[in-house]
């Protein structure tokens, strides 16, 4: 009965009609209101990974008509963190970002991120429990979970089987202890007229602080206790670990005192070092480049095996509308299904973050062809969270300088680590005192 009435005395049907038309017209807008999310991601390993991420994001967007994730490539880990910090300080935070795991306390100190327990509570507990436990250690603070593991790695030992055979070592048996490592390295080092033409072992520089953490773990120590806010850089375990490095570089001269993270995989491929400490992230590169047979092993142990995990985690940011945070969770949850973790692992060479990822046929076929990829996963049972603290970039600089000073013979291990401990106690005083 809402026909247009010509009578000016009864205007309400007209009003009603206008309102109705308005509602009908507005309906689709309400239904399809699009939540747009900005997602910062770094690329840490070689290969067309930016394209892989974009494909995954496109698929997510196609499956979720009311969410649109915009993936923004942000360089390596360091530029990514700089972009995140600038954006947060500029009041324009991203919704989601993958950031290097040791930056977690810095993000906390900036009050930039939100805890994810509320979202985890909505999920079946099997989701949380399926991740390798070592990966959660860099997500915990104040009894809450703040980050979801995504692209994760550990350091391992690579060895050149041909070089082993050449000096009479069993090519299929890597060193298992520090003593064996030193002994093998001595055999494998080749010299021509005082010049080393092949090092026995190379402990890659650049991220040697990360490798060093593994050695300290193998010796039963810990560099930074994040929960209890204490530093143990000059603990007897750490000093002994550094003494072992100095023994390799200075006394035995079977390892180079300096190297860079980017050049040592190339040195290994060129046969300039017979054993190499590096990330699992280079495995795909080595397989593509090496013309000789090589193996992947746990980092040799002392009191036990040990390694610190590495890589990047997902974070959701503060000061954005709740609906965007909710949508961000939907995206993270989708990116971390066991199946997608398997896909991502195959594409990138990272460890699949979830245990059940290894049951997928695709993944099983893959590791059957390349069993080396399982070494890093199996090492996880001896792995720990990576050291972290606020302003961790500065901590790394101080620690790396101490390590370099000792391996170059400029200081004794004790002097170098005492110095680093003192310096960081000063710089992190506020945090150490609980503020």
């Amino acid at each position, binding site marked *: 009965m809402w026909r247009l009435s010509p009578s000016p005395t009864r205007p309400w049907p007209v009003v009603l009609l206008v309102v109705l038309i308005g509602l009908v017209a507005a309906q689709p807008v309400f239904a399809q209101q699009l939540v747009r999310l900005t997602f910062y991601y770094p690329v840490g390993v070689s290969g067309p990974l930016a394209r892989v991420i974009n494909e995954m994001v496109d698929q997510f967007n196609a499956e979720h008509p009311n969410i649109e994730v915009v993936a923004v490539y942000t360089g390596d880990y360091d530029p990514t963190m700089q972009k995140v910090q600038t954006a947060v300080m500029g009041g324009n935070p991203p919704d989601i970002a993958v950031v290097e795991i040791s930056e977690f306390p810095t993000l906390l100190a900036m009050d930039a991120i939100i805890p994810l327990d509320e979202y985890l509570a909505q999920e079946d507990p099997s989701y949380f429990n399926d991740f390798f436990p070592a990966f959660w250690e860099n997500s915990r603070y104040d009894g809450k979970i703040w980050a979801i593991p995504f692209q994760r790695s550990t350091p391992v030992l690579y060895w050149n089987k041909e070089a082993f055979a050449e000096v009479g070592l069993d090519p299929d048996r890597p060193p298992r202890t520090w003593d064996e490592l030193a002994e093998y390295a001595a055999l494998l080092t080749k010299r021509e007229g005082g010049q080393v033409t092949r090092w026995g072992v190379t402990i890659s520089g650049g991220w040697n602080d990360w490798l060093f953490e593994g050695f300290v773990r193998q010796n039963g120590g810990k560099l930074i206790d994040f929960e209890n806010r204490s530093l143990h850089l000059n603990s007897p375990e750490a000093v002994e670990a550094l003494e072992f490095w100095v023994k390799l570089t200075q006394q035995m001269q079977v390892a180079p005192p300096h190297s860079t*993270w980017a050049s040592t995989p190339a040195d290994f491929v060129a046969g300039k070092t017979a054993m190499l400490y590096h990330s699992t992230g280079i495995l795909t590169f080595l397989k593509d480049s090496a013309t000789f047979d090589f193996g992947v092993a746990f980092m040799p142990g002392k009191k036990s095996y040990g390694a610190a995990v590495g890589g990047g985690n997902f974070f959701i940011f503060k000061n954005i509308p709740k609906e965007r945070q909710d949508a961000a969770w939907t995206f993270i949850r989708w990116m971390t299904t066991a199946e997608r973790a398997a896909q991502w692992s195959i594409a990138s060479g990272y460890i699949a973050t979830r245990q059940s990822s290894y049951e997928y046929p695709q993944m099983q076929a893959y590791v059957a062809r390349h069993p080396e990829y399982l070494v890093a996963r199996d090492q996880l049972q001896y792995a720990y969270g990576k050291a972290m603290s606020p302003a961790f970039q500065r901590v790394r600089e101080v620690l790396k300088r101490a390590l370099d000073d000792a391996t170059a013979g400029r200081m004794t291990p004790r002097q170098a680590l005492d110095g680093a401990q003192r310096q960081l106690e000063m710089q992190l005083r506020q945090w150490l005192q609980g503020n």
Partner: protein
Amino acid sequence: MRSRTPTPSQLLQRLGLNKLLIHLILMMVAGVTAMPYLFALSTSLKHRTEVFTPVPQWIPSSLRFANYADAMAIAPFGTYFINTVIVVLGILAVQLVTATLAGYVFARLRFRGSSLLFGLFLIQMMLPVHAVIVPNYLTIKELGLLDTRVAMMMPFWASGYATFLLRQAFRQIPQDFEDAALIDGCSGPRFLWSVLIPLAKPTIIAFSLISIVTHWNDFLWPLIVTDSPQVRTLTIGLAMFVQQESGADWPLLMAGTILVTAPLMVLFLIYQRKFVESFMHAGVKG
């Protein structure tokens, strides 16, 4: 003064060997300079397994032009290239206007507080780039220019360095020129345009080269203020080849590097005579 026994250089000159020697040395220097570029070119055509050999290998066993296609597939280099050209020239054009005007004022006009103001310009030169990233970001955000090409240009439109260089260049031009120009009825902007700028051409060209190279290579600022591939620049594309955790894929990285640096190389090869000439013609003719 004439020595009785000829010096070695005189001997060489007599034998006509002087020029030969100079050319030999120059050829060696040129070889050393070109070597990294040639090796990059060679690596960009290799297969991955050929990159690292105990003895460097100059000629790839087979030329893999596919590396270039693979590199191009990693990022939209065509768009990045156009953006880079726009940003670099956009910065330079405005810089030249602001810097010549400011340089002229600081060099030729005396007014209250001019030295204080010039001091402030010098301070701008001394501030490290990282110190101003957040303030600049806030400005760009307030102007609503995030994720645009203008955002990449704007902070560099006024350059303390360029102002300083041009001020010095203008000051070196004798006062007589200005007096003569004034007598002929040429003053102010006309004097700047017809006398000072032509005489300062070497400085302007030198600064332009520095500016182009600096902003062609700038990475952090474009990365921070842009999000979408439509407006981003070449260095961001190149960064996709360098990886912190795994090391680089060298043939692709080198193919990308050649693609990114080639335009500058070609530009220089074409115009090198002009560049050099402009430096040679510097100086005041009595």
